[in-house]
């Protein structure tokens, strides 16, 4: 009797269990934290890529200047025009310069600059690094002895952290000029009087809060763009996804940071 002793085929090796959604979230958070930590470590350790940092400042800052200045100018005009009816109901159009100054310096200047930069620079960084990742240029750099993280990530994040605050001051300045043109055309307010009102409403806390906020916004745009580009999936589709994710994530984080900054500044202001 033939016994059915035929050995059954060995079961295929078990695939590691897919991590759950929560686990994936924690893993990605750990990955982001590791990426940020590596940035700070590489940023302070030599060698420093000054040439690349200057090139990135040129690309991020100077190349965005016209776009951001135009946006700021239009923002100043539009915000002034939209605020006028509310104030004129109370016969308080003379308060327009104060209102505009507070709005532009405290919120609109840093926010508009960061959002425009996130759209232009964040997507550019995500796409560029994603493309390099897809075409294995990053691996090639590593093979050739160049530290890709220092050369690609540190230089870009430093450039965005440095130039976004400068672009913010450009935006504030241009937006105030736009607001002045509108106020002057409607209320015949002179430039010295306008500036008197503007600087009467603004405080040092407002200016320095804008400065620090825009540094954080710049850092966020740079680090998110680089992270998404560095971790893009293979294939041409990955480049587009990386660019898109860089923009969406950095914009979302900018609003979160704005909300946190508002709480901190309000606490500092005592109101």
């Amino acid at each position: 009797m033939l016994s059915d002793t035929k050995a059954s085929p060995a079961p295929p090796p078990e695939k590691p269990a897919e991590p759950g959604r929560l686990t994936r979230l924690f893993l990605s958070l750990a990955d982001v934290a590791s990426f940020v930590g590596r940035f700070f470590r590489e940023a302070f350790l030599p060698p420093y890529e000054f040439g690349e940092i200057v090139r990135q400042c040129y690309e991020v800052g100077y190349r965005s200047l016209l776009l951001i200045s135009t946006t700021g100018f239009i923002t100043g005009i539009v915000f002034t025009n939209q605020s006028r009816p509310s104030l004129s109901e109370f016969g308080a159009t003379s308060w327009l310069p104060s209102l505009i100054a507070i709005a532009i310096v405290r919120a609109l200047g840093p926010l508009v600059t960061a959002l425009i930069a996130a759209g232009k620079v964040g997507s550019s960084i995500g796409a560029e690094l994603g493309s390099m990742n897809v075409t294995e240029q990053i691996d090639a750099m590593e093979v050739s002895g160049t530290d890709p993280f220092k050369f690609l990530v540190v230089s870009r994040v430093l450039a965005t952290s440095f130039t976004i605050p400068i672009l913010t001051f450009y935006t504030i300045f241009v937006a105030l000029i736009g607001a002045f043109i509108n106020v002057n055309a409607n209320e015949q307010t002179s430039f010295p009087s306008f500036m008197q009102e503007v600087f009467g409403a603004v405080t040092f806390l407002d200016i320095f809060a804008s400065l620090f906020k825009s540094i954080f916004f710049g850092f966020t745009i740079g680090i998110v763009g680089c992270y998404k580009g560095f971790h893009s999936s293979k294939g041409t589709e990955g480049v587009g996804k990386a660019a898109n994710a860089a923009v969406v994530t950095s914009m979302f984080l900018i609003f979160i940071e704005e909300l946190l900054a508002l709480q901190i500044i309000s606490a500092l202001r005592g109101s």
Partner: protein
Amino acid sequence: MSAESNKRSVTVGIFVLVGLVIFVAGVFVLGGQQKRFTRSLRIMAVFNDISGLKVGNNVWFSGVKIGTVKRISFFGNSQVEVDMDVEQSSQQYIRKDAKATIGSDGLIGNKIVVIQGGTISHPEIEEGDRLQTVAALSSDQILETLQENNRNLVRVTQDFKALVGNIRRGKGTVGAVLTDSLVANNFKMAMANLEKASVNTAAITGSVSRFASKLNTKGTLANELVTDTTIFRRLSRSANKLENVASNADKTVGTLGQVSQNLNRASEKLNNNNSPLGVLLTDQETATNLRITLRNLNEGTRLLNEDLKAAQNNFLLRGYFKKKAKEDEKRKADSTDASQK
């Protein structure tokens, strides 16, 4: 480094520089506006109610911003101490008796501290001084006053309504004036009289005008009086002389006064019994004695005359009297000759 890289670095440098210039300029303008870089001194004021004043609000003196509120803290039981930094350049204008109050920058503007008053007799404020305060008028108090005004306005309008009703019904003087036909006729007559009076006034004005024109006509007495300077000069001299005469008369009257005083003093002395003349004039006994003495003297004189006549006939003195008689005759003859010549 390539030429393109150099160009890029220069562009980034300019970009960064301009951005920093905007930032630094903003900081300096803001600092200047908020007087951050000016020397200041700290003064205090204690209020019962600060009406929502906050740190950073402005301090005004005579309508000029001179500083900002630096600290707000509770003081005593329920008062509030406000520390202010004011410019040192305004120190000389704020006196120790100046008063601080809580005001408002416009109708719905920010709260401000207003320093007012102060007299030059008091020294200027110093670091750490505490100003006197005046309680500000709150919006509640303003509304309360407005409410009182409204109540008064209602009463006034009610009174006015009653008044107008009375007038319409012809009550009171005003009502009578407006409704009584007799009063209207009297009023018409009064107006007519007034018209006549105005006509008379016009005639008087014409007369005055004619008089004025005569005054301006040369040769008339009035014109001479008004325009002739010679007459005026003479009148002026006459007036001066009259003035001199009057002053002399004054002096004379003064002298006469002194004389009369002297006479008074003399008459007082005469009336006085202690003075010799007073005794002679007023004492009866002395007068009697004097009369007796005079009678005795008359008697003595008569007897002495007899004795002298007897002596003239005496042989011892007869020669002397003859010689004297001759000399008298001779003197008379000489005087007669001299008069004839």
